[in-house]
């Protein structure tokens, strides 16, 4: 039987507000432990939450980008569980009345992924498990808690199970990440934990539309690992069904170290969150004026730009440029489109230069001249494109021996030093041309313009 994967995602992103979701402690990644805390985020008795207006706006903006409906009335709930990273014993989150619902997100391949909801909540504190090996929970003899992160505004985006392959899931994540970064609502950096996601995976016979038991993969720390994890989980489920078994609903903790996904110990009573409408907060009723103003603030989104660029490039190249944040530079760099795109996605990408720091015209000159400059010089020049006042001219000039007058004596010298090869060439062994070119390049330390050297050699050897 052929099997088809069914994949859904839950993505959490930290919002880039100045202050926390429900108190006005400053958010600062890497600040001294517990130095960004107050009675509210430490859950001292009697303290109360006050929502961050900017976080609400950012969520609505994201809702627009995901083509969601922004609801008329949204309510915060308390979600209860005991854990030292949760100071109040509950997380304030949105439950059955999220701010944004029923959206969709188009991928470069033309497919659309349904967005079930995007809601606002607060992040938990950071626990450090001590005494065990390598900060793991197992074997720890104590846990240390830093509440700086507690209360960071967090948006949770839940997709419909519309993704059909690990590759598609990865591309969805890349495009979503680029979208929130460009909206200016999140850094979405996985290393900092400001972008996290879980994956739900199930499979079904191809052509069927049934939904089978799904498993949840947690703790994915990169898009590539996620893709691998999904692949492996699909294979595991196929193995189970094909040997007559049943997939069990469980949460798998992905360990990138050994690339296996052992089941998490299921937390007792984990499902009973005892949701309660948060009595310390009043409903959000986003006015149409605010909703429309935010819609007007929406920039051209990455998805739309991919579609536009795909007309002149192929889709993969367009998607690559956009999700890597290089497409705006691409559009500014003059020159043959495909060549510019290829350089940006390959040699230039390898330099790690910030696209925003680059003078597009100068980069264009460099790319245009790429066949006339030695590879090493080209690479060196690309690496310098981020420097202030970068001029391609200088690299072209310094790097290349372009003048016939400069090259002629060298060519003559090489020919004089290899009389028997000259005779052989003239006798018909034209393949020796490469040998002469190599000799000239050697003499010049690779700086000669190869095209010019070729021309000069041909001319001299004809004589």
């Amino acid at each position, binding site marked *: 039987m052929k099997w088809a994967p069914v994949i859904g995602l839950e993505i959490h992103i930290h919002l880039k507000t100045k202050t926390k979701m429900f108190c006005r402690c400053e958010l600062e990644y890497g600040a001294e432990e517990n130095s960004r805390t107050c*009675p509210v985020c*430490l*859950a*001292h*008795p*009697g*303290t*109360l*939450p*006050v*929502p961050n207006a900017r976080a609400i706006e950012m969520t609505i903006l994201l809702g627009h980008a995901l083509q969601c409906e922004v609801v008329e009335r949204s309510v915060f709930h*308390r979600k*209860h569980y*005991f*854990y*030292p990273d949760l*100071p*109040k*014993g*509950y997380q304030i989150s949105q439950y059955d009345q999220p701010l944004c619902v029923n959206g969709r997100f188009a991928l470069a391949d033309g497919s659309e992924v349904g967005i079930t909801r995007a809601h606002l909540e607060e992040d938990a504190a950071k626990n450090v498990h001590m005494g065990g090996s390598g900060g793991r929970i197992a074997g720890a003899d104590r*846990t240390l*808690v830093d509440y700086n992160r507690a209360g960071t505004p967090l948006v949770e985006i839940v997709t419909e199970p519309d993704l059909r392959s690990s590759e598609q899931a990865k591309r969805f994540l890349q495009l979503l990440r680029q979208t929130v970064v460009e909206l200016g609502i999140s850094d979405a950096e996985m290393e900092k934990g400001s972008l996290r996601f879980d994956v739900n995976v199930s499979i079904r016979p191809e052509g069927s539309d049934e939904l089978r038991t799904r498993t949840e993969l947690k703790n994915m720390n990169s898009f590539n690992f996620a893709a691998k994890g999904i692949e492996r989980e699909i294979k595991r489920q196929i193995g189970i069904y094909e040997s007559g078994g049943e997939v069990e609903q469980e949460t798998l903790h992905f360990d990138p170290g050994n690339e296996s996904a052992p089941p998490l110990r299921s937390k007792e009573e984990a*499902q*009973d969150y*005892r*949701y*309660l409408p948060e*009595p*310390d*907060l*009043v409903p959000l009723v986003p006015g149409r004026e605010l909703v429309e103003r935010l819609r007007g603030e929406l920039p051209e989104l990455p998805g739309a730009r991919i579609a536009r660029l795909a007309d002149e490039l192929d889709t993969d190249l367009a998607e690559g440029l956009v999700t890597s944040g290089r497409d705006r530079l691409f559009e500014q760099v003059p020159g043959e489109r495909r060549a510019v795109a290829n350089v940006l996605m390959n040699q230039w990408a390898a330099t790690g230069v910030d696209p925003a720091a680059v003078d597009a015209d100068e980069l264009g000159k460099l790319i245009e001249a790429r066949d006339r400059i030695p590879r090493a010089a080209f690479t060196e020049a690309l690496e310098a494109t981020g420097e202030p006042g970068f001029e391609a001219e200088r690299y072209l000039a310094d790097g290349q021996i372009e003048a016939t007058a400069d090259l002629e004596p060298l060519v003559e010298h090489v020919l004089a030093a290899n009389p028997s090869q000259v005779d052989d060439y003239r006798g018909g062994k034209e393949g020796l041309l490469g040998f002469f070119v190599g000799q000239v390049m050697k003499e010049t330390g690779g700086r000669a313009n190869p095209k010019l050297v070729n021309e000069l050699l041909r001319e001299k050897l004809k004589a």
Partner: protein
Amino acid sequence: MTDTLRLTAEEAMGLIERSEASGAELHRAYLDAIGERDGELHAYLTTVEAAEGAGVPIALKDVISTKGVETTAGSKILAGYKPVFDSTVAACCKEAGLPLIGKTNLDEFAMGSSTENSAYGPTRNPWDPERVPGGSSGGSAAAVAGGLAPWALGSDTGGSIKQPAALCGLVGLRPTYGTVSRYGIVAFASSLDQVGPLTKTVRDAAFLYRIIAGRDPLDSTTVDLPEPVELPETEDLKGLRIGVPRELNEAEGIEPGVSEAVQRAIELCRELGAEVGETTLPRSVEFGMPCYYLIAPSEASSNLARYDGVRYGPRSGKGDIREMYMQTRDEGFGDEPKRRIMLGTYALSAGYYDAFYGQAQKVRTVIRDEFAAALEQFDVLISPTSPTVAFPLGAKTENPLAMYLSDVLAIPPNMAGLPGLSIPCGLSEGLPVGLQLIGPQFSENLLFRTGHALERAIGFDFVPERLR
């Protein structure tokens, strides 16, 4: 020598204005009275030696967070806890220059109607030390009635200001929900908790309400008052329509002596020029209690989840974090909080939400609508505050349901978010009887006016007979 038993806050203001006494001297006089009488009454959990402020000193219920002054909510789980911040109402009192005398005893986490649920021992009623002062703001009530504070703040979730005011012969205002900040008030049931004054006179209550009321940016559920607080002057009730809801006045368990005193007050309303008529709240009284005992414990079970021994408060238990939580909470909470945490956790747990909390919220709508209808016909509703006068210590501690019934008349208007003013209206068996005045939301000025006129006409002597 100041007669702290007799001195009202307004009179104390007069002494200060005329430089006959300073805030610090008054503060000292109350500390002296505490030294003399609090051994018997146990109204205070903590006293403050240094007077801060030049105004009339005040006592605060120990759910009101006070920077640097221990705040326990009457619970062992907060033993030794000294807030690093002031609650908004404590800050308001400081700003008004009211020196803090101390923190008053209460039922643990404000859960109770007798102040016997305090982890630090019960408070006794100044009228009869063998009897309870009511609760949960029993410490604040006993302090004012016993001459240990000129005025005090309490908190009221299901009658915790009105009922002890009634049992101690005082004026108690439970303000309209949302007019007084809850920031820094140790939470019991967030959608019901309100702070308010316990005083000897209605004018004192109005003075104190003026100091603490208004929108607080730190409490999302507060609003600005639609009109400034007025000190009542008028001594008649001309033009007022006063409604007597049958169910609130004929409920089972109302003592005959209580009914009689309330009847006399209703007669007085007529004599003072009010138009008096009967009205009805068919379901509010019958369903008010069940509704309250679902909503309040559910919210309480949630609000009390933060007491986990991690960031403040004592910690017990060996082993892992789970063990620590379970031991800390078992040892830290007394019986009543445990009962309500259990009840609330059960009511919110999977499968029960709609039948319990969800249904109770709908009952709340029913109650709200009934009061709204009655208050279209009448300006003010009137009833006993408590079905009984102060009862003996220990009389109801073994039977939680009997204890809960003590608030059966105080609870219904609370469910509707309405303000309620309790004023003493006479004695029954030598003990004070409280009269409950209920008005629409934000009608505090009207309640003060009504209460003031009745207070003048009744002429109740707030000094307990045995202490005169």
